[in-house]
């Protein structure tokens, strides 16, 4: 029970403030700095500096040379050094515990890819955006989840069918938006539904990733291929008679 609660707290804190290690590191750092009276109160505003100062404090304590002055001062310094040493050892153990608990905490890996262009837009999606804008001044576009921000960042002329949800909030004010979002989030989307909601919402263009595998292409439902790129395809609504 306690293990599950702690795991839940760690996960929740990780969602809120990133690595769960900060949950342990920051209070431990404040505790250490409070014990050594190193101006710890203002550092509540700067968590990273607090942790860094605490780590430095530990290093200083481990490698500090005892200064022999007057007998009273020397004795006070010894007691002070022993307190700092004990606190330092305790904090080091806490830090090690936090680092072990952090698990896969590193950013690098699957989260990072080499940039495609100076705009940091994936693939040659900028060519697609440019092509759409050449044809239409205020295009309404339906695209993959997560791509909408690229379109809006490229040009304010784009009118996206839905805004990408933020965090865990997956609520949409429109069932068509929800349908489009959920369908395009899977590997085999139902293109009939996608095309249907796109037409109802007035989306002239649909930009899809080439990584999805619909059983029936969207070209069967009133859209034609407009631009084909390496990682995307732009479909344009077929004009009616």
């Amino acid at each position, binding site marked *: 029970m306690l293990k599950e609660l702690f795991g839940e707290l760690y996960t929740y804190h990780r969602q809120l403030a990133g690595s769960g290690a900060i949950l342990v590191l920051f209070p431990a750092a404040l505790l250490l700095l409070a014990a050594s009276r190193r101006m710890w109160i203002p550092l509540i505003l700067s968590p990273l500096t607090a942790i860094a100062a605490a780590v430095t404090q530990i290093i200083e304590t481990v490698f500090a040379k005892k200064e022999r002055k007057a007998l009273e001062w020397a004795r006070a310094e010894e007691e002070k050094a022993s307190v700092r040493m004990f606190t330092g050892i305790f904090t080091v153990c806490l830090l090690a515990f936090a680092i072990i608990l952090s698990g896969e905490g590193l950013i690098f890996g699957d989260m990072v890819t080499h940039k495609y262009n100076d705009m940091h837009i994936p693939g040659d999606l900028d060519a697609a955006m440019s092509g759409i804008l050449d044809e239409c001044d205020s295009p309404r576009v339906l695209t993959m989840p997560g791509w909408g921000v690229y379109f809006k960042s490229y040009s304010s002329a784009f009118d996206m069918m839905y805004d990408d949800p*933020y965090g865990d909030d997956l609520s949409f004010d429109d069932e068509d938006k929800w349908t489009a979002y959920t369908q395009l989030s899977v590997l085999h989307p139902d293109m009939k539904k996608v095309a249907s909601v796109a037409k109802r919402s007035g989306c002239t263009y649909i930009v899809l990733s080439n990584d999805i595998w619909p059983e029936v292409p969207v070209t069967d439902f009133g859209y034609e291929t407009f631009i084909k790129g390496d990682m995307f395809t732009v479909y344009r609504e077929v004009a009616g008679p």
Partner: protein
Amino acid sequence: MILKCAAAALIFIVLSLAAGSWSVCLPGDMTDRRIPLPLRFSVGGCLVILLSMLVCLAGAPFSLPAQTAFGIMIAVLVPACIAGIAVERKKGIKAGPVARLHIRIADIVLIVIAVILFVIQVTVVLNFDFEQTGSLRCIPAATAVYDSGRLFMADPMMLLEGTLSYVTKIHPLIFICNMTAVPLLLLYYMCYLSVAGCLLGGRSRIFAFIVTELLCIRGYQSEWMIPATLLMSWYGIWVFIVHGLLNIAVIVIIYTAREKEAARYRSWDFEEHEETQEDIPEEWDMKKHKIINARNLAIAIALLTVALLALVFVLNSKINSLHDVTAALQEDMDKRCGLYEFAPADGQTQGYLLKESDGTLTFIGGGPKENAEALKVFLAAYGDSITNWYVYGEDEENSGAMREVISSGAVDAQNIYVLDRKEIDAIK
């Protein structure tokens, strides 16, 4: 692009150092000290950005043209920098590294490590993309300013970025993702170095700065905190507040506290008191050597209380989320498939509507023609197209309502079947 980035960085550094003259106004007697360059740069940089953002924010309600806003920015910043330099000269303080800094080989090694870590981070942010697009959420505001040439109410930092993009005719994505990376990251790290310098000295300061860099590179992995991470986004207002303004606030608080302590120490009348350890004010004497004392106990209890409250909060939110998920699932199931009973005013069941998960409607029954109006109202709530309609007979008693509803055009039925209610006795 490299030249443009270098020019942007140079302009920002020069402006920041000039505006950093105002750091002479920090609390404390600085007449016999030099202002460290990191402190000067961090204070000046934050001041430049803050003033520029305030100009943009002030012009936003009036849809001020970006060109005009830029002109006002220059008109505000240049006199501010000149005034700062004048104040600094009047106080007779010089800027530069701390006097009599003894640099050893170990210090040089640490400085080189710090520089390498900074270069690594800048290289990563300039040459790599992150899968997390949450950090880009604020950029459309800058693009809107760039496209329209006018300011509007939005993230102040994005208004500033958009204004500068418009003036330089460089697309915001290129401007933000390339040209502002080096100056802004340098500013924020200098803020951290300045805070470390306030607390620690010499090699310890550099070591603390390296630890800060490592923490920043390790980064946050929170969708909520992405707008404030230095690895994924260095251009938002929250980044500026968290890594810039708050650090400056820490520096001001520390300087103020030290000034008060120094003033109190200066006012301590040593002639009346013997200079013994017990008489020196508590702030200057490490009296408390015990770990278990009132202060530490209070801190420990406070931390435990916060942890307990957090656990309760997390457990409660988990239970609530489970409930919400269950309720949503039930609602979704209700919407997707269901069996609905058609019972007109007299209460007797006259038919059933089966709604399948793909939206297909099947109706069984209907009754006589008198039920037609009630049936129209009933079916209107579920749709106007019945895929399969089954009636118990072709006579008016069993199919009258169906014929009336379809012939009036209220509902369309693709297939109509008559159920042959022939009982199978052989199975019994």
